[in-house]
């Protein structure tokens, strides 16, 4: 086990930043701590590094408890969101800082920094100052500085937040590659679920200082264990239903009652890909007008308005879109193939959220 947290809590004043958090990271894993801002993920990262001390619980690195071990002794590489480069030092001196503290001989420092500069594509920049570098270069210097002393673990706080979209994409792939090369445990913090899904081996999802779910990207996407995760990871249509005449309804939409009595409420969610559309206005039970098409690359997202005014989102490939001859303003028909129950009577559901309920195809076709 590379890193392990056991029931760790940390408050700032009366605010609980981290509440009873437990998880374990295996050696060599690439882990994302995902959550909205203020969910405690950065505090968890700082706790692992020793920049914060927990009030209770244990933090273990390679099996040894490090609660009382000062930052300097933890041998952990930390990359700050703002990079926190030493402004008055050249790139070389920034990267050599940790090695000088370890009293490496200067030839070894030279060799180590040059190796890292190669790996990080920083050749020729070693005599520059941080203010003479681009955002992406600064970040690579920060990573190089953290990697130089050979840490057990590399921690990155929002590593992609401060760079523009194109570089961000390159950086994601670059991080995955470096992880493969170095075979090192890497934990990074992000608020961007897409980023976490793309880069991480496993994702730890935080909300309000607590761990909501831990799992591989596909697992948290397809089997969310609570409403928060279901709604936070990926896009989801969420509907508030009320049971009337034995079926759960919202406007013209109708779902099974799942044992609820008339007047009771439940909240359901379904991914855009579960909404199947047809250009034939009577192919499926429900009808809608295509309001707007969003181009997401290979896939398109459709926003459609039901006669009642309800808005739902669907997803379709470019090919299917062209084949069906869809266009904004057209009347289409659709069916919902599967959905999951998020809550009943505002009571949060546990594992039940993970179950996808299939609907019979063409349910009630031709009203």
């Amino acid at each position, binding site marked *: 086990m590379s890193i392990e947290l056991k029931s760790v809590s940390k408050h700032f004043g009366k605010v609980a930043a981290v509440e009873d958090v437990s998880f374990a990271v295996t050696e060599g894993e690439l882990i994302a701590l995902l959550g909205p801002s203020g969910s405690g993920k950065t505090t968890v990262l700082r706790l692992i590094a020793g920049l914060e001390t927990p009030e209770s619980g244990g933090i273990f690195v390679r099996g040894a408890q490090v609660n009382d071990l000062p930052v*300097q*002794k933890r041998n952990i590489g930390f990359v700050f969101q703002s990079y*926190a*480069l*030493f402004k008055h030092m050249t790139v070389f001196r920034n990267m050599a800082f940790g090695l000088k503290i370890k009293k490496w001989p200067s030839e070894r420092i030279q060799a180590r920094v040059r190796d890292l500069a190669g790996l990080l594509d920083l050749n020729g920049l070693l005599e520059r100052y941080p203010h003479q570098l681009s955002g992406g270069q600064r970040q690579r210097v920060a990573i190089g500085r953290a990697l130089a002393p050979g840490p057990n673990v590399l921690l990155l706080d929002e590593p992609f937040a401060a760079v523009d979209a194109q570089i961000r994409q390159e950086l994601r792939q670059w991080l995955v590659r470096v992880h493969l090369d170095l075979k090192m445990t890497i934990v990074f913090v992000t608020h961007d679920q897409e980023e976490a899904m793309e880069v991480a081996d496993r994702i730890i999802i935080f909300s309000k200082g607590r761990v909501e779910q831990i799992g591989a990207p596909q697992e948290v996407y397809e089997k969310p264990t609570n409403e928060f995760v279901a709604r936070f990871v990926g896009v989801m249509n969420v509907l508030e239903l009320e049971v009337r005449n034995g079926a759960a309804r919202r406007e013209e939409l109708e779902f099974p009652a799942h044992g609820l009595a008339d007047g009771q409420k439940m909240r359901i969610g379904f991914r855009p890909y579960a909404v199947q559309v047809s250009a034939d206005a009577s192919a499926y039970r429900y009808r809608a007008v295509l309001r707007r098409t969003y181009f997401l690359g290979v896939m398109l997202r459709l926003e459609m308005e039901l006669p009642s005014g309800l808005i739902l989102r669907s997803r379709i490939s470019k090919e299917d879109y062209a084949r069906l001859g869809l266009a904004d303003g057209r009347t289409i028909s659709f069916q919902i193939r599967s959905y999951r129950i998020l809550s009943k009577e505002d009571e949060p559901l546990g594992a039940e959220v993970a179950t996808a309920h299939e609907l019979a195809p063409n349910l009630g076709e031709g009203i």
Partner: protein
Amino acid sequence: MKTSANVISTLPGKPAPRTARGSFHWLLVGVAVLFSAVFLVLPLLNVFAQALAAGLGPYWHALADPDTISAIRLTLIIAAISVPLNAIFGLAASWAIAKFEFRGKAFLLSLIDLPFSISPVVAGLLFVLLFGANGLLGHWLEVHQVKILFALPGMVFATIFVTFPYVARELIPIMRAQGREQEEAALTLGANGWRTFWHVTLPSVKWGLFYGIVLCNARAMGEFGAVAVVSGHIAGQTDTLPLRVEKLYNEFDPVAPFAVATLLALLAVATMLLKALLEWKTRHES
């Protein structure tokens, strides 16, 4: 400010109001230039004109007076003691205030500002009330033959009090703006507190610190009120440069007070030049 005006004028779709700028703009600039010429530059030049009115001979003669030499020496000694002490205090206080949360922080902040809000004469009186013959510690000091008032220690105390805020006030905003992250980065790389301070904290505020010291020094050498109260005006012993200027002026000497005043005026000019240089340096390094 010039920079903000530039920013506004480069905003798309928001052209600078050129017509309004024209004559009114130059009128304002003219008023400012005229005002500073009449009230700042002219008097300063006049000091030099008066001092050199009788030629270089009397000017050097006035400066070579033993009592004046003694005043120069005393001024330098007082500055040499009080400025380093205030620099160390200012550095420690600004670091604590800018980077940590602790009880009594607001109190410490207003304490630092106290010398700004108190009249220097009152500041001097505080020390008289403390160390004077009838003061709180007066009797004890007399018994043990420790001389503070009307001697170097009292003048150093008064100077430290008056110049207390300069370094701290200069550094607090700079340190606040820099935050803790560079220091935390040094810690994660294995640096201890001492090393972090010398290699990360101090270099990143060095120009601000130097600027604070320059201002502190200018005030320490130029202070009149507080020092006048505790000095006792013993010629050749407890007169600093400003006190010496006043004494010579009261003696109706036509050249000497102005000659000595040129030294203080030169100090002021040197301070302003250093200030401009340091501001330019900090701008270019950030």
